[in-house]
C-alpha cells in the first residue's frame, strides 16, 4: 500500500467516526514529516454550525496546539507550508479558500464534490492565481498542489451508507438529505451518486 493510501485510510477512519455520530461522513488528517499531526471529521450536526467541516476542525486543532506551544505567526505559517492534508472528499469552496489562506502545501482528496467543490469542480481556488489588482497591488493568493481520486470509491461508500441511514438533521423522513425548497442531493434525484453534501 502506498504512503498516500495509508494516509487516506486514516482519513477514511475519521469519516467513519463521523458516520457513527450521524454526521455527513467526511474525515481528514494533516501530515507533517510523514507523521499525522492532526485529524478532523465533520461536526456540522452536533455543533449546528454548518461550517464545521473536517478540514476546519483539523486546522483549528493545530492552531490551538501550536499557539499553546508559543509558536509565532511566522513559525505557524512555515509549518503549514510543510503540511499535507488528506481528506475523503474534495474540499468545498469555503475549505479550499481556508486551506489557501493558511498556506497548506498540498491536498489529496478522495471523491469529487460536484456541488460545492473548490478544487476544480465548481471553482479552482487551489491554483495559484496571483494577479494584479485594479488598485495596483498584487493579491498574494497562495495555491496548493491538489490530487484527487485517492480511494474515491471507499469515500463514496460511506456517503451511500449515510444516505441509507438518513440524515438526522433533515425533516425526519429518514431517507433524504434535503430541506424544503432545496434540491435533494441524494441518489433519488437521479443524479450520479457523487457526493454533494458537505453540510
Amino acid at each position, binding site marked *: 500500500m502506498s504512503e498516500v493510501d495509508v494516509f487516506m485510510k486514516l482519513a477514511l477512519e475519521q469519516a467513519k467516526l463521523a458516520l457513527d455520530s450521524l454526521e455527513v461522513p467526511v474525515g481528514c488528517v494533516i501530515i507533517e514529516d510523514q507523521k499525522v499531526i492532526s485529524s478532523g471529521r465533520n461536526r456540522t450536526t452536533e455543533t449546528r*454550525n454548518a461550517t464545521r467541516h473536517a478540514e476546519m476542525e483539523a486546522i483549528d*486543532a493545530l492552531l490551538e496546539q501550536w499557539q499553546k506551544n508559543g509558536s509565532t505567526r511566522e513559525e505557524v505559517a512555515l509549518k503549514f507550508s510543510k503540511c499535507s492534508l488528506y481528506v475523503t472528499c474534495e474540499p468545498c469552496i469555503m475549505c479550499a479558500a481556508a486551506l489557501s489562506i493558511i498556506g497548506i502545501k498540498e491536498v489529496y482528496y478522495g471523491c469529487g464534490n460536484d456541488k460545492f467543490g473548490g478544487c476544480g469542480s465548481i471553482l479552482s481556488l487551489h491554483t495559484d492565481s496571483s494577479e494584479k489588482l485594479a488598485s495596483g497591488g498584487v493579491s498574494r493568493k497562495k495555491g496548493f498542489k491538489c490530487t484527487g481520486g485517492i480511494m474515491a470509491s471507499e469515500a463514496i461508500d460511506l456517503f451511500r451508507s449515510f444516505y441509507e441511514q438518513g440524515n438526522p438533521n433533515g425533516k425526519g423522513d429518514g431517507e433524504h438529505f434535503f430541506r424544503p425548497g432545496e434540491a435533494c442531493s441524494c441518489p433519488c434525484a437521479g443524479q450520479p451518486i457523487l457526493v454533494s453534501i458537505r453540510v
Partner: protein
Amino acid sequence: MDCNGDESATVKIIHIPEKPPILPHCQPTVDVLASAIEPKHANVLVRKLNHIAPLEGLRHIKRIRKTCLDGGKNQLFVILCMGSRNDGETTYLPEEVLELVNTYQLSTFTTKVGHLAYVMLKGLKFCFLCFVEMMSCSHCYFTPSHLIQVCKYAALTKEEWEEQCKLWPTSFHPPTYNIDGITGFSEEDSSSVLNFMKLAVSMAKSCTSVVNAAVIVDPSSKHVIASSCDEVQSCNPLTNSTHMESCCSGANANKMEKDPILLKCSSSEAKQSYDNISCLRPWGWLEQRLHLRPDSWHPLRHAAIVAIENSAARDRRLFPLDGHSAELAQEDCKVSSPIGSPLKRQKTYTNVKDDDERMECHRNGSLCDSTKPYLCTGYDIYFVWEPCIMCAMAIVHQRIKRVFYAFPNPNDGALGSVHRLQGERSLNHHYAVFRVLLPEHILKTVLLTTATKVDQCTTQISL
C-alpha cells in the same frame, strides 16, 4: 440607533444579481448552424437532433423557429448543431447530423452546408461563394443552412427575453424564488435594513483598527441573532463584553473626524488602515501587529465565521436536544466548542434577549419545534465589506437568506467583485445579495453616535 423617515428615504439598496448586469440588447451570443426544414419532418428532426446534437448549456434556446417569408408563406428553421466549439477550433458538421440531412432530403444542400460550416467556423460571416455578407447575397438568399446567432444565457428579465427573441426564440422562466427585496423595499424595510447596517458599521469602526463586522438578523422579529467583528488579529479585550450592541464598540470622536475612513473608502491614503479587514486581505494574517497580544490570532476567524459560530451556540443554548436543561446544553457546547482556547474565553452572548426568547418558548408549551431554527434559514446577514469567498461560502452552508453589504471588496469579494457566488447554480442553497449605499451624512451620524456611546474603552485606542 434611531432612524427617521428622512434617513430611510436616502438609503439606496441595490440588488446584486446572479449575473453581471447587461443591457438587453448587448447580451452575449453564440453561433449555431440552422437549416430550413419541411414542417412534416419537424417533430422527428427535433427529437433526433436533441439526441445526437444536444445544445449544451443552451437549454433556453428553442430548437425550431417559424419565420414568415415574403409572400406570407411560413418557413420552419431548425438548429442543427453548435456553430463552433468553445475553444474556437474549427468543427465540421457532425457525421450523424450530416446523415440526418441526407435522410430528410436535405441532401442537395449538403455541400453547401459543409461549405458554409467551413466558412463560418473560420470566423467569417461572409458567403463562401461571393464574400458578400451572409444572407444578403443571392447565393445565400435561398441557402437552407445558415450560421446564426442565439443568446448564450437564459433571460432573467422580460426585457432581456424580448430582445433575445429578435435573434432566435428562447424560453423565459421568471425566477421561481421570491426573496423579499428583490423587487424593492418598503420604507419600513429600508429603515430596518439601514438600522442593522448602522450597527455593523459602528462595530467595524469601534475596535483599535477598522475591521469587518457581521450581524445576523432574524428579519421577521427584527432581532439580532448573533454578531461579531473580525477576530483574525484579536479585536481587543472588549470582545469580552457581554452585551452584543456594545461589543467592541469604541472610538474617539476627535480621531474619527480626522480619519473618516468609512467615508472615503476608496481613497488611497486610507489604505494603510484597511490592513486589518480580514476579507479584504485574507492572506494578511501573517503580518505582525505590534499592539497585539501574541496568543490571540487566528487566520480564519473572519467576522462571518465567528458570527455563525455565535449563532450556532445560541441555537444550542435555546434549543437543547432531548429535554436537557438549557444550562446543561450550554456546558456541553462550551466543552465541545471546536475553537481553541484563545477565544473560548468569550462566553459572549448570553444576553437578556436570549433568555426572554426562551421563556417565551416555554410559555408556549415546551421548546416549540416550529420555532426551532434550522441553521440560519430565513435570516439576514449584514457586512460592512463584501465578504471573501471563504465567508461567502460559509453563509451558503449556514443557509442565510439575504446578504447586505455596504462596501465592495475589490481584492477578494465573492458576491460580485471577484467571484459571484450567488450565481453558482450548482450550490444547494442560494441567497439574495444587496448592496446598501449609505449616504455620507448617515455614515457621519453613525460614527459620531458610536463615539459618544462608548467611553470605557477609549484607552484602548492606540493608533
